[in-house]
């Protein structure tokens, strides 16, 4: 049985060129980029090259605006906690949304619980969109930070970041966006978006795991969350993960070169998949919007069925997909995102997320649809 991987939103395989680019940095160019000797300088140069590639990916004018972190979660933590702590004199109110990734939500919870911040969570409509007017209505004199994800990892909603960031700009409030899901699927331009902070994660766009970045617009102050040496211009201590940073840089370059081609392929596969699903199944629902949707994301609910059963059956057929949020025990619970969009229980319990990658093919989609038919038919007969 062939293995079909449709969980690219969870992680992606590292590209061959990325792996090749990383190899010399394990034991050939291995010096500490902070060392002043020649090997160190050579390593530092490679680190800076990687930094520039990442800056280019997101349209940042200066490479120094990129801070390498150990992943998207750390980037979110640094953005939220770093900005909140640096600006707590001005106020202690933060606005975010109810559909953010847990890295953002838990960082906010931390600020609330331990540092006395007040958090307002904006709701979303049935398709997952945040309303800029609602953002305006919730701004206070003591609001110091707004964080809205660029697109939702579960249902694919692409938020109107430009509009939302404009509201923040008008009110002189720092705006952060978790862009972990859009890198490699949508064009990113931090100046067009007009954001102050932006999180990235390499393993979502065929880079290695364990490395991410936070874009910090020049002039924005953050309190570092990892204390120690003065790496990353004193914003994030610790010896650079040189190998992984180089990998992230290469992955960024690949995206910058191939993005349009990739978007076209993903959109076409997505369209095909959705059409096939709707023509083969009754009583299904596409969760999230059809337009303004991440090209890789297909999130489907099958009325009255159970996501766990569908997912585990897919697993036993060597098809990897996802559902809900994996919690600490490894089991699935109904995701907070589905609750927020008001999805009724009979659909919420069965939401399965397929996320496409560049390597997926039409034949694979056909196979998955075929297997789904068998699975759904059997599950329905057992009801």
């Amino acid at each position, binding site marked *: 049985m062939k293995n079909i991987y449709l969980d690219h939103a969870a992680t992606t395989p590292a590209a061959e060129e990325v792996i090749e680019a990383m190899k010399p940095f394990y034991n050939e160019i291995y010096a500490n980029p902070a060392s002043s000797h020649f090997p160190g300088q050579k390593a530092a140069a490679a680190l800076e090259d990687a930094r520039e590639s990442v800056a280019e990916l997101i349209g940042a004018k200066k490479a120094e605006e990129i801070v390498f972190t150990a992943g998207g979660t750390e980037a979110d933590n640094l953005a939220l906690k770093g900005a909140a702590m640096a600006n707590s004199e001005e106020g202690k109110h933060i606005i975010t949304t109810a559909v953010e990734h847990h890295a953002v939500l838990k960082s906010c919870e931390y600020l609330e619980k331990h540092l006395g911040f007040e958090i307002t969570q904006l709701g979303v409509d049935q398709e997952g969109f945040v309303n800029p007017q609602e953002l305006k209505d919730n701004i206070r004199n003591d609001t110091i930070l707004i964080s809205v994800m660029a697109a939702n990892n579960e249902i694919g909603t692409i938020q109107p970041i430009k509009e939302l960031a404009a509201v923040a700009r008008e009110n002189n409030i720092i705006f952060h966006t978790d862009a972990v899901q859009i890198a490699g699927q949508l064009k990113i331009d931090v100046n067009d978006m007009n954001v102050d902070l932006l999180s990235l994660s390499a393993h979502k766009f065929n880079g290695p795991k364990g490395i991410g970045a936070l874009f910090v617009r020049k002039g924005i102050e953050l309190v570092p969350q990892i204390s120690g040496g003065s790496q990353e211009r004193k914003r994030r201590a610790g010896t650079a993960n040189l190998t992984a940073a180089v990998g992230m840089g290469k992955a960024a370059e690949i995206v910058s070169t191939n993005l349009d081609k990739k978007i076209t392929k993903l959109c076409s596969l997505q369209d095909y998949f959705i059409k096939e699903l709707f023509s083969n199944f009754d009583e299904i629902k596409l969760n999230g919007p059809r337009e303004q949707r991440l090209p890789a994301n297909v999130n489907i609910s099958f009325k009255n069925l159970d996501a766990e059963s569908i997912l*585990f059956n897919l697993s036993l057929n060597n098809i990897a997909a996802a559902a809900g949020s994996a919690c600490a025990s490894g089991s699935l619970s109904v995701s907070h995102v589905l609750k927020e969009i008001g999805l009724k229980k009979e659909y919420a319990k069965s939401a399965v997320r397929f996320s496409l990658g560049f390597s997926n093919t039409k034949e694979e989609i056909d196979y998955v649809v075929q297997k789904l038919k068998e699975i759904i038919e059997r599950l329905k007969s057992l009801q």
Partner: protein
Amino acid sequence: MKKVMIAMSGGVDSSVAAALLKEEGFEVIGGTMHIFPDYEEATDREDHCCSYSAVRDAKRVAQKLDIPHFVFNLQDEFQDKVIDYFVDEYSRGRTPNPCVMCNREIKFEALHRKAIEIGCDYIASGHYAKIEKENGRYILKKGLDENKDQSYMLYVLNQKQLSQTLFPLSEYTKDEIRAKAKELGFEIHDKAESQEICFVPDDDYVRFLDANYPEISKEGPILDNEGNQVGTHNGLSHYTIGQRRGLGISMGYPIYVTELDYKNNAVIVGKDDAVYSDGLIAEDLNFILFEDIDGRMEVEAQIRYNSYPVKAYIEKSADDELKVEFEEAQRAVTPGQSVVFYLGELVLGGGIIKKSF
């Protein structure tokens, strides 16, 4: 090849059971339930069934055996059928056995259904008990190891459930299983015995109830058997029949809880002899050996898990009600607990104790 899902707790019994099923030629899939309520501290106790470390252990065993493993989220069902039942019983002055309800509604029902949904023919567990088929009927017997027999907890299984369940450990003693575990390279970690409550991580059910369901505990009088008030209690749920400690009363002689009067929210106390009963009425019956009882029968009745069967006579007293008369008076017959009827190693069936007399 028949497919079976083995319910895995990460403990030695279910781990060896999984290995045995594989040896017998089944296609084996491991399954662990996630049942802990989110409002209780995430539990990571080594010895608790279905805790996070239990899930990890189960996964490791599955990896060693090269079998797929899934974790099933049954929190909603568990809350509804086990925890709510547990709280409800305590609120009515009864002492529930949630494990019995879990077997009936979760392990051999909800989890069973999941097993069927992923294409399994059977569900299996590491219980020390035996299922056989006789005259077209599925019967339940004690496991080989008398000391480890868990058939008491399984009296609730119906014919459909029994027809699709396997107990691979039925012919083994605990010592043999331990030896087998060593042979297979499994770490010997015993998970909680059934007397602990799996969803109360610190085993303090009083704290669990007071913290999460304080509304069920109301102060009331402690009365003697003549109706005189001899003290006050802080909620019926804090007491059980036969209890001596924690009454806060000194009468010059030992006194025990003899009854929990839900209607009057009173704890009734008395001397030791008042704690004994000649019989009980059982409800919520399930018969395994036959469909229903005809006339009067002599059986061996076990009135709690850590006790042994005693000679008794049973007879229907109403539609879903059974009168049980002991040959010798029994101590601390507790409403809410299960009474299970045996004929030697055969499990006839059982029910929930409604009241004693």
